[in-house]
């Protein structure tokens, strides 16, 4: 049986409708911060490569709709980098660093677990969909088509350093979906302006590869500093 990740969204909306006793508060905001991506790669035949997490960033806009005192829906649109590197720890030492930019739309249900004067703490969970917009690859690789012969007539292979746009292939799946969970700590500066810091973890349920390659899933943590404006007062 296959469950589509996007099926989570109507489930969440249904759950919210069941609960709807609106207090009608709408906030818009901006958020930005670093993101750290871990590639979950199921290898079956790549004996030497090791993947490592790489830092990127997340920046976006958010809309928060409070419909009960402690419950709200959070959505928005983010640009997020899900970067990783592959390298060979053996004597060959080949290195590849991938910077992948996604446009991402999360939908979260937030529960305010702490409401103390000006401080508030939310826990949230939900889903996201994203589109793999572009990529860059920075590689250091031996190039057998670029060899030279030394004075002793020994042949050596030159290493190539290349930093270029990633060329998508028919094996790439550019749509991603998954689950997101997070914590947000907010501080109410005025009745309309809140600054916040948030930590969110995105777990992709979509393999980025279409064929029988090593499956690749992004797991991304993002730390954000946000500024929220309450456009509909209590």
């Amino acid at each position, binding site marked *: 049986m296959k469950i589509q990740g996007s099926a989570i969204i109507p489930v969440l909306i249904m759950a919210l409708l069941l609960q709807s006793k609106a207090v009608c508060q709408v906030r818009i905001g901006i958020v930005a911060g670093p993101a750290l991506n871990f590639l979950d790669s199921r290898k079956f*035949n790549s004996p030497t*490569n090791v993947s490592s997490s790489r830092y990127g960033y997340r920046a976006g806009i958010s809309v928060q709709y409070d419909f009960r005192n402690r419950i709200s829906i959070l959505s928005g649109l983010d640009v997020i980098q899900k970067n990783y590197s592959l390298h060979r720890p053996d004597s*060959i030492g080949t290195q590849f660093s991938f910077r992948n930019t996604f446009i991402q739309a999360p939908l979260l*249900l937030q529960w305010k677990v702490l409401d103390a004067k000006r401080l508030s703490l939310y826990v949230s969970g939900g889903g996201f969909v994203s589109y793999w917009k572009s990529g860059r690859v920075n590689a250091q690789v031996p190039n057998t088509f670029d060899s*030279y*012969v*030394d004075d002793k007539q020994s042949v050596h292979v030159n290493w190539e350093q290349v930093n270029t746009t990633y060329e998508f292939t028919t094996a790439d799946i550019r749509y991603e979906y998954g689950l997101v969970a997070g914590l947000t700590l907010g501080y109410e500066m005025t009745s309309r302006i809140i600054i916040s810091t948030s930590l969110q973890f995105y777990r992709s349920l979509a393999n980025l590869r279409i064929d029988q390659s090593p499956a690749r899933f992004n797991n991304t943590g993002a730390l954000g500093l946000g500024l929220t404006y309450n456009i509909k007062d209590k």
Partner: protein
Amino acid sequence: MRTVVVILLISVFLPCSCKEEVIVTPSPHPKDFPEVFDAFWAKMNSNYVFWDSDKTRWDEQYQKYKPLFAELDINQRNDVEKSLSYFTAMTKDLVDGHYLITIGNKYLGNTPVINPTLARKQSLQSYRPPYDHLPTVKTYLDNDYQFAVAGGFNTNDSRFEILCGKIEGDILYLSFSSCYMLRMQSSADKPGVNAVIQYFLSELNSSSLRGVVIDLRNNHGGDISDLNFIVGPFVEPGTVFGYSRYKYDAGRMDLTPWLDAKINPLPGTRHVGAPVVVLADNFTGSAAELMTSAIQSLPGGTFIGEMTYGATGTLTPEVLYNDGSFEMGEFMTVQTSSSQFRTFDNLFVEGIGIKPDIAIEFNLKDLNEGHDEALERAIGTFENRQ
């Protein structure tokens, strides 16, 4: 509130249990045909570099041939022979010009070879066997030409021939049967060949040359470093003559960005300004084909002859890129390219061959009568430039 929490929990954990993944793990020393098949399929999946341009549908091959191999017994001669026909059918359309499967001697008492590219060529009505041009060429050369023969460096090229001389006093001609010129020059036990190479190098540095002919007809390739040795004198260091890429991981499409394919002249090489013509034919392959492409890319370079063989990748040990050739225990070895190549004008010619600037059809009758039209056109090219 409880409803929301329960639904959230369900939505978080349910999809996780439904991730599907089919993984075929190859055995390094397969003992029976099901293991041989799995190992072959999986290694091809990860090591073959042309999946982005190949017509063969590898997943369908798995579905079709897995049950057939499951019925075979590796200790039965008939079944091993049957497996040969299955491997042949599975690989018949592979584009890799270097692709070869060799079955271990232990199983059939000989070492049968599956060569899809050659089989496709041989099935064409226009196919012709290789032809030895040198006896005809010698009639065009001035009397003081030099010719030598030596043992080669591998079983495919067990005999190395080199012919060098002048035509009309100021056109330098060189033919060598495989791309082991640099290695030959470094070998102390090849004095005859070495003398011809030294003759070529000294004549190449002569300032009065009208042109140079590099004859690569029937040359199946060899070391890629011969490009630096032979083409190096005609270029500046680091001259780009094409583009190459390799695998970086086990996925079928895990290919590196295109990297520049370069020629770097040997230390102490003097630049030669004379125009150069390369002669090549249907049997010019691998490093010789790359040399053809490199000469064709030069401002003063011309390629005359037939389409080349279409094997433009390189063969490097599997450990370098985790791709290319592999072994499956004692049962069989698979030779396959570890790189893709594109020509200077960005053409992918694997399995196709490089197109000549001046096409000359093979004419057995003319050659047997002493007329080498390709060589005559090469000489004519230099006359036009006088």
